């Protein structure tokens, strides 16, 4: 029989420490929907999504009951829409976003990702039109998420795209200003975008994927924070061990759910994304893990080292627990979605410069950071360029999801509600990046030897 302590430990993780499956995301290829007849394309997309993911929500609910573990989000990711629309104009892309929204509503899912483009080296006419359509598409839908990959380690940084995305981010903020610029929470700019990421807003179904696939994102910062707290004072070798063991257990649950979801939905199992994804709930914070390691406040000196160790130990523990790992896999640091980050930002311990340093050692990047509403497009592009450069040079994924909250300034805060949480507006450097951003062209791909 199972060990009593093990059973109680699992139940405690779920009940007290917010262990959950963050998302089951079904990736759906839309390449077979391509048609030169607009109406036919829209119908085919709607039909393919609603048919492929028909049982997704129901299956997730069944799994939730059977295994007694909450499954927070059910999502769909699709082939980057710029590849499906190709020669569309911006208006037609906005209409396609509407089709995705309708399909998402029909399925009852939380989000649909993939309204995006891959422009790391250059921009096709279709990709350019899609990017043009992003602000209106995000303002007129609630579930559609957009991601644009502007750089890769192999291609370098497309600085024209970086410049454009600063403008698009600003326009999106303006178009959704009556809702505190919430549209920007659904827009991410990437370097080295993964093709199998189940997390939003950056999920898309890559070109090398099968027709449909199930990817699962685990969570559990609360479980890791509690395990570290329980362990008490110990050295770093021991600490890494505690994190690895915990990450292993969390990931095993993800593996079970992914395997079962894939079997029940008759869809191939893709990957587990080993991420520590926080929520604004008390006891579900990545910042609190770092603070439990001995930092007075997240953001102080030592934070980058603590996060580097956490991220590495989570991967080491998780990799053994799952047969296929992918996506973003690491600790997320979305400011507004993490109670500890919010508190650290409010008291001034956590600044955007420190967050940038932290992204060099963890998953994703500058995430859910509210910045002053009067931030210029070129400053936004400057922030994007910095973050993307970290990813390109270090051969990792980085991303930027900033919210320039129109009408608000430093000292004020913004409430997004639900899983998106709330955030103080963070101050930015006041000096201009405009001339730099206006140069255009590409920053060449980095050299892969002489690594320093």
């Amino acid at each position, binding site marked *: *029989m*199972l*060990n*009593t302590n*093990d*059973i*109680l*430990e*699992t*139940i405690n993780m779920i*009940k007290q420490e917010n262990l959950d499956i963050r998302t089951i995301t079904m990736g759906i290829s839309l390449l077979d929907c391509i048609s030169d007849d607009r109406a036919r394309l829209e119908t085919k997309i709607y039909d393919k999504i609603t048919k492929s993911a028909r049982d997704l929500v129901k299956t997730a609910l*069944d799994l939730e*009951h*059977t*295994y*007694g*573990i909450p499954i927070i989000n059910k999502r769909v990711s699709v082939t980057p829409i710029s590849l499906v629309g190709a020669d569309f104009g911006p208006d037609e892309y906005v209409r396609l976003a509407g089709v995705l929204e309708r399909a998402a509503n029909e399925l009852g899912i939380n989000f649909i990702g993939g309204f995006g483009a891959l422009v790391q080296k250059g921009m096709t006419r279709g990709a350019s039109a899609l990017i043009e359509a992003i602000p209106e598409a995000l303002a007129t839908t609630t579930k559609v998420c957009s991601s644009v990959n502007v750089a890769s380690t192999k291609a370098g940084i497309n600085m024209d795209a970086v410049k454009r995305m600063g403008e698009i981010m600003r326009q999106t903020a303006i178009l959704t200003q009556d809702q505190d610029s919430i549209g920007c929470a659904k827009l991410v700019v990437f370097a080295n975008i993964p093709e199998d990421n189940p997390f939003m807003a950056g999920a898309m179904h890559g070109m090398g994927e099968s027709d449909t696939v199930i990817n699962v994102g685990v969570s559990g910062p609360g479980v890791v924070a509690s395990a570290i707290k329980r362990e008490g004072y110990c050295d770093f070798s021991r600490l890494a061990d505690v994190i690895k063991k915990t990450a292993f*257990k969390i990931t*095993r*649950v993800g*593996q*079970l759910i992914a395997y079962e979801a894939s079997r029940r939905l008759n869809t191939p199992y893709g990957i587990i994304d080993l991420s520590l994804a926080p929520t604004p709930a008390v006891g579900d914070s990545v910042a609190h893990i770092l603070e439990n390691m001995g930092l007075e406040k997240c953001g102080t000196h030592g934070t980058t080292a603590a996060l580097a160790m956490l991220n590495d130990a989570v991967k080491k523990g998780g990799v053994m627990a799952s047969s296929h790992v992918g996506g973003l896999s690491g600790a997320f640091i979305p400011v507004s979605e993490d109670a500890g980050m919010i508190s650290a930002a409010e008291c001034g311990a956590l600044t955007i410069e420190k967050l940038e340093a932290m992204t060099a050692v963890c998953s994703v990047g500058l995430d859910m950071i509210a910045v002053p509403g009067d931030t210029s497009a070129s400053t936004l592009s400057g922030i994007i360029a910095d973050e993307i450069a970290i990813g390109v040079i270090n051969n990792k994924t980085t991303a930027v999801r900033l919210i320039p909250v129109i009408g608000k300034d430093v000292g004020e805060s913004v409430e997004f509600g639900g899983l998106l949480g709330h955030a103080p507006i963070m101050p930015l450097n006041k000096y201009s990046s405009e001339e730099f951003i206006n140069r255009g062209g590409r920053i060449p791909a980095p050299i892969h030897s002489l690594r320093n």
Partner: protein
Amino acid sequence: MKAVITVIGKDSVGIIATVSAECAKFGVNIVDITQSVIQDYFAMIMLVEIDNMSSTFMSFQKELEAVGVQKNLDIRVMHEDIFNTMHRI
């Protein structure tokens, strides 16, 4: 298929009787029980066989949860595999 029923809460008379009666009602066979009382707190773990259940897993689960609410106990029914995968390599 086996499930694990866990009952956690303040100790009182008849907890096992109540849960066992529900199992019998649903045609659920009890395979093993362990229980302990730590400082007034009662923790019972029951391994049950649910293949010949007379109703759905979800309705059994709901019924036991309702009993838990009535008696001020936290009662959960979970497929045994979540524990097996998490704690056994």
